[in-house]
């Protein structure tokens, strides 16, 4: 495909994944460590001695830094995406992150990480860049287009922030897809299903419920609801708070003053939570800085009592979604569970109750891994957008806007112009006029939410219709068109109808980055341009070549070398010389090919070395893998970085 592959990305609160369609089935792309999940954790490495900008690591390695250098690590950044300073303040009460001191109300909040400050979209961009690299490593080709999932209940600002993050990471975001809808796509693939399904998605930091009607490959969302402040994090924080309080009371140690220790307890809390999904009791056993041990048993029934209020908060949105879809629980044919938190037995019981499942002899769908199903669905949507595949050509997703759009009318009341659960794209046209003779500006305040008063809704944007021709009050007729696109993001355009003049409008988002700001935050990396990518491939290919060349250089010192026949030895030397030559050139493909040839030529040598060194069980391996496996047992011929290009 000329334009390259489109990948599907689940940018999660706790973990992120990238997936693509392989033939007619979506698969998750593993990282270099072989793991499908990339923890959504970003760490700033120590400041280099020369004072240059510290590098950033993402995923498992960043998570390890959480206990040693908590002040340089951030997790759960999704909870901060598209949020105002005030909202972030509230959120940060539960998290150990520090806000940069100089942020003013109205600006996008920045988080202090070591010496540097980052906006939430920048942090997310680092996660996205890691996923992009994982995919590029897997394909051996650049990846520039993606579908990214967002919680269905994300508002305009949160969606825009996610799109900004994609752009900073060098990805063209072809579509934002709602997570529960993506899960439905993953389940609906290759099943000629008809009926009404509910997707209950309780993730790390957000809760969504969506009700969809499936018919002839069309996935039509009927209603959606949720809470973008509700998830596994809240359960972790409950357990954490109890442990910290008890440690303080029983051992006189206030761990809250030791961020690293808090993270250690948090880790233990998460492990206990996970264990309680399969066992009746979990144990805390933590060594405290003063040498004491904090030991505690948590029986499952105590845990369930504790989390009951958190889980109960999912019931309201479910009932509202049913009411908005105009159906009863009995009319739901199937329920799909998504998100790691749905592994908790108490959550499954609640879902069973809410949708009257076991009473009707039904069970929720859990066949697909709840951690992966959203990414798999994103890959399906990516394939639909790429438009080149038979398996998805009949599929179409019709999603809705989760929140009503309104404008502030006289007295601060909201006049709704697009109702929640309207299929998107959706539009509305409103007419405005002036209140004073000669007035040339009209101010408009756009809000999102269900409350009666604008002050209680989420402010999206304020803008001025400028350049209205001076006329008597009430005479101008300004037509403003509001359009919510397929990503759930608002666009506004305006025209003065009497003079036919297009009124100039500058939509200033209440919270969010300007285009210029996003532009300036695009990650400086090799990933941005095609030529940079080729350069990176070349550098990697040369590194691989050097590793194997260095090993071959040492080969004659090994006793195994003498066991080779003369022509085998000369084949190795020839291959070595060829690689030497290739390495001096600029063609990465040629270097890789010569590397592979040398690796093949040394196959028997590697076998002989292994035989000599350990067991015959490793026979048949190439020098490359033998090197890895022998690394600890013997002096390995070489520990070559695995060549992953396919």
């Amino acid at each position, binding site marked *: 495909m000329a334009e390259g592959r489109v990948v599907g990305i689940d940018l999660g609160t706790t973990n992120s994944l990238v997936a693509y369609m392989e033939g007619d089935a979506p698969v998750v792309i593993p990282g270099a460590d072989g793991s499908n999940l990339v923890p959504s954790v970003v760490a700033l490495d120590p400041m280099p001695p020369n004072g240059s900008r510290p590098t950033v690591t993402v995923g498992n390695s960043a998570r390890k830094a959480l206990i040693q250098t908590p002040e340089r690590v951030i997790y759960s950044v999704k909870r901060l995406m598209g949020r105002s300073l005030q909202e972030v303040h509230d959120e940060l009460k539960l998290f150990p992150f520090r806000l940069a001191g100089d942020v003013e109300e109205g600006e996008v909040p920045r988080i202090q990480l070591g010496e540097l400050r980052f906006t939430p979209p920048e942090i997310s961009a680092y996660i996205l860049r890691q996923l992009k690299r994982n995919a590029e490593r897997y394909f051996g080709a650049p990846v520039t287009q993606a579908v990214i999932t967002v919680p269905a209940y994300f508002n305009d600002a949160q969606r825009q922030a996610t799109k900004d993050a994609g752009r900073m990471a060098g990805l063209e975001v072809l*579509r934002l897809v709602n997570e529960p809808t993506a899960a439905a796509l993953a389940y609906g693939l290759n099943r000629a299903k008809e009926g009404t399904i509910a997707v209950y998605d309780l993730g790390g930091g957000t809760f969504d419920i969506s009700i969809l009607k499936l018919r*002839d490959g069309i996935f039509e969302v009927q209603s959606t609801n949720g809470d973008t402040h509700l998830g596994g994090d809240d359960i972790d924080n409950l357990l954490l708070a109890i442990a910290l309080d008890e440690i303080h009371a029983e051992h006189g140690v206030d761990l809250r003053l030791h961020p690293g220790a808090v993270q250690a307890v948090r880790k233990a809390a998460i492990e206990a939570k996970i264990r309680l999904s399969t066992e009746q009791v979990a144990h805390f056993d933590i060594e405290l800085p003063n040498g004491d041990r904090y030991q505690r048993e948590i029986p499952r029934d105590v845990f369930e009592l504790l989390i009951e209020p958190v889980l109960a908060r999912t019931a309201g949105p479910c009932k509202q979604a049913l009411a908005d879809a105009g159906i009863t629980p009995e009319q739901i044919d199937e329920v799909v569970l998504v998100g790691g938190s749905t592994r908790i037995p108490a959550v499954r019981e609640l879902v069973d109750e809410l949708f009257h499942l076991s009473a009707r002899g039904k069970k929720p769908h859990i066949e697909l891994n709840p951690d992966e199903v959203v990414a798999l669905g994103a890959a399906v949507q990516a394939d639909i957008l790429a438009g080149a595949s038979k398996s998805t050509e009949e599929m*179409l997703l019709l999603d809705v806007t989760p929140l009503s759009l309104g404008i502030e009318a006289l007295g601060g009341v909201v006049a709704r112009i697009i109702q929640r659960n309207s299929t998107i794209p959706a539009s509305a046209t409103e007419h405005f006029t002036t209140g004073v003779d000669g007035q040339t500006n009209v101010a408009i305040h756009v809000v999102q939410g269900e409350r009666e008063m604008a002050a209680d809704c989420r402010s999206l944007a304020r803008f001025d219709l400028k350049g209205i021709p001076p006329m008597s009050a009430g005479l101008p007729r300004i037509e403003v068109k509001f359009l919510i696109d397929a990503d759930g993001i608002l666009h506004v355009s305006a025209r003065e109808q009497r003079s036919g003049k297009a009124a100039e409008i500058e939509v200033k988002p209440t919270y969010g980055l300007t285009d210029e700001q996003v532009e300036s935050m695009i990650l400086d990396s090799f990933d941005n341009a095609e030529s940079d990518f080729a350069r990176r491939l070349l550098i990697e290919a040369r590194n691989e070549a050097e590793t194997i060349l260095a090993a071959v250089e040492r080969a004659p010192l090994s006793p195994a070398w003498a066991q080779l026949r003369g022509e085998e030895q000369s084949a190795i030397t020839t291959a070595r010389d060829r690689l030497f030559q290739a390495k001096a050139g600029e063609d990465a493909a040629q270097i890789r090919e010569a590397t592979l040839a040398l690796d093949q030529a040394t196959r028997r040598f590697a076998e002989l070395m292994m035989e000599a060194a350990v067991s015959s069980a490793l026979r048949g391996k190439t020098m490359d893998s033998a090197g890895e496996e022998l690394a600890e047992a013997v002096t390995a011929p070489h520990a070559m970085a695995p060549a992953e290009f396919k």
Partner: protein
Amino acid sequence: MFKTLDSAVPVACWACSIGHNDSTLFCPHCSKIQPPPGGDYFSVFGIEPKLNLDLAALEHEFHRLSRRLHPDRFARAQENEKEWSLADTALLNDAYRTLKDPLRRTEYLLKLLGAEIGEENSGKDRKDPSRVPADLLEEVFELNMQLEEMRANRKMDEEDPALEASLASAKDKFDGMLAAVDDDLRGEWELWDAGGAAARGASQRKMVALLDRRRYLSNLVRDVNEVLGA
């Protein structure tokens, strides 16, 4: 009266340059997507304006058009086609949302015909007192007194079962009135769809009055529900 296929302005297709009328989503010659057409919501579905609609057929057509128009089908198309796909799909969705709902459909048709009616789903004219139906004046006055009293009771945490029962029965009564209005509306649909110009004119006036009454009643029911459920 309506902007129909015949009265539409002919325009040239951007792709094949052959002229076609302005109310089509796709060029009849080269099938390429066109900028949003000028017609009304009914014409998006290729139907004449009417009030009794075959909802299954409407849904089928909605799905058929969605498959061809949706931005997902144009993710890698050129910019102008992308833009029109977005605008056309918004129009299709707006049209479907309006036409599939009987009340919105009726309001929309009446507005097309020039009637001025309030907006069911907007907070804008909720408290507009000028639209109180004459026969309800007395009851509404009485009801508002009771609602005030009830709200005051709530604040003081006092209970008044008699008042509560009276409000509940008022609510039942208004619910019944709503159902009667809906019946009348359905009757008018038949008349309008089947009628000539004169019959339609009379039917339109009745429907405008019925919708006003309906909106007023449903606001009352909501107010009572709010107070009783508080």
